């Protein structure tokens, strides 16, 4: 009988060890699978962009990099892409709304991993990285230039470099100094007075400027963080060492992010974005013009002559399925904005499309309360998080920046 008793107690001990003794496993299998899907090592290699045949040409990327940092690429010679997309600040500017030649209505977007997006801008009003780059160049509040002036400038400053990549520049001697279909009345008149062939010549140089800048931007990729080291160790069963280990608060935050708080429904995959548009009830900013998000962008991307279906695309139309199958109407796209990546977010307040929130605490408080949207319908519902849970979510978000 003593033997039985000792065996029984051994068994009981073993059961204890399994259930509690060595600690409840931190994460269940489903949670582990989700965590693994967020780690940077699952990021696939960058796909070729068939719409831009220069996308992976090093000389094009080098010219693009020069143009990105060149304030000469603006009306008054003071603003470049890098004025707002600062290389040492995750390619953004820490402002609630960007300031170029004028004060804009939206926050500067960081650029890590940007070449992987199907849509560009907070509202997705452009459908390729190269078509996107043309927009700030002519936006009167950003670089405020015009395409005829840019073509002349390229010929004068970078003619040789341009021609080595894109072939001979067109004869621009009869092209006006300033002309664009989108500018001032004088610029529009000058544009309309140009024969179609000349307009095409200028548009071609303009598109190639975008393609060179896009080639450069393809090299801007997200960096590994503490979260990624933690996730890899969790997946391989290794014990996280040093700062790859998560504090109990960070573990709770991660559990909430992928569980009860539903963040991962939209912020998913290794970039923490589903690349889609959602109304999350973020309030508009007093004093800025009305902003309806995606619903107004649909017509703009459809009408853009540099979109995937236009004649400046390289390769064939099979690359244009995002544009072809985009949602064009319906209540879900009113005040819908693109889900931003959360990598590096903790280091670059303020947040949201017009810098509405100045801290991550405010962001998480917004999701906890989930106020209704001023227009359209918010997809997020009140989470009623406790103070401890809100702090845990913020602690977790910080692991994506360290």
């Amino acid at each position, binding site marked *: 009988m003593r033997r039985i008793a000792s065996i029984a107690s051994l068994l009981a001990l073993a059961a204890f060890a399994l259930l509690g003794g060595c600690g409840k496993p931190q994460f269940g299998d*489903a949670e582990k699978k989700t965590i693994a899907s967020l780690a940077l090592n699952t990021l696939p290699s960058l796909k070729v962009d068939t719409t831009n045949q220069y996308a992976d040409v090093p000389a094009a990327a080098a010219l693009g990099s020069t143009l990105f940092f060149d304030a000469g690429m603006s009306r008054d010679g003071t603003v470049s892409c890098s004025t707002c997309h600062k290389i040492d600040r995750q390619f953004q500017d820490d402002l609630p709304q960007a300031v170029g030649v004028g004060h804009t209505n939206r926050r500067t977007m960081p650029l890590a991993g940007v070449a992987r997006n199907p849509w560009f801008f907070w509202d997705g009003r452009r459908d390729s990285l190269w078509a996107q780059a043309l927009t700030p160049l002519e936006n009167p509040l950003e670089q405020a230039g015009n395409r005829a002036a840019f073509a002349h400038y390229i010929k004068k400053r970078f003619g040789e470099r341009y021609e080595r990549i894109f072939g001979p520049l067109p004869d621009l001697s009869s092209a006006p100094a300033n002309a664009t279909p989108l500018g001032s009345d004088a610029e529009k008149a000058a544009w309309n007075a140009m024969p179609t062939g000349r307009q095409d010549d200028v548009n071609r140089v303009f598109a190639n400027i975008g393609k060179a800048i896009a080639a450069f931007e393809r090299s801007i990729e997200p960096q590994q963080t503490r979260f990624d080291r933690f996730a890899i160790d969790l997946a391989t069963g290794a014990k996280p060492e040093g700062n790859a280990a998560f504090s109990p608060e960070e573990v709770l935050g991660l559990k909430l992010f992928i569980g009860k708080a539903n963040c991962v429904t939209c912020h*998913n995959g290794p970039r923490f974005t589903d690349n889609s548009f959602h109304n999350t009830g973020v309030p508009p900013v007093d004093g800025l013009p009305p902003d309806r998000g995606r619903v107004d962008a649909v017509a703009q991307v459809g009408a853009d002559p540099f979109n995937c279906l236009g004649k400046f695309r390289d390769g064939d139309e099979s690359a244009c*399925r995002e544009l072809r199958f985009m949602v064009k109407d319906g209540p879900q796209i009113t005040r819908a904005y693109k889900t931003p990546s959360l990598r590096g977010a903790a280091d670059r307040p303020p947040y949201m499309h017009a810098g509405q929130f100045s801290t991550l605490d405010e962001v998480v408080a917004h999701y906890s309360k989930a106020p209704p949207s001023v227009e359209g319908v918010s997809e997020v519902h009140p989470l009623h998080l406790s103070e401890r849970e809100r702090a845990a979510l913020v602690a977790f978000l910080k692991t994506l920046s360290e």
Partner: protein
Amino acid sequence: MASTWRYILAGLGLAALLVGIVAAIYLTLPQSAPGPDLSRSKKTANGLFVASFEPERGVVRQGELQSWLLTLKTAAGAPVEGAAITVSGGMPRHDHGLPTSPQATDYLGQGRYRIDGVKFTMSGWWQLHFGISAAAGSDTVVFNIVL
């Protein structure tokens, strides 16, 4: 003494077996036990057609634009030609629609229609609703997809 010992061992073995079986059943059970009907082939609402819906490349990938095949047969098993097909859908538990607008883009013969532009941006329960109009009449069918 020896026989008591054997009984205990046998009892323990049986218990372990039971636990194993229960665990196996529990683990293989679909996560949302009374969840939606996941069949990829079914009768349309009014029984006019039999519809099947499969990803063209065999696998469903979250976040990728994919093409699927909708195959339509009459109740008698003949392929349905020249059907006009509308597609809608969304996530019933999140009150939102599809992130793309899929369309029937090609007829591939033998009642097979390519439905291109399908994208599932998050894991969970999705629904695709088809409106089908053909010589035999109009009918609808809903497919559930859980990622």
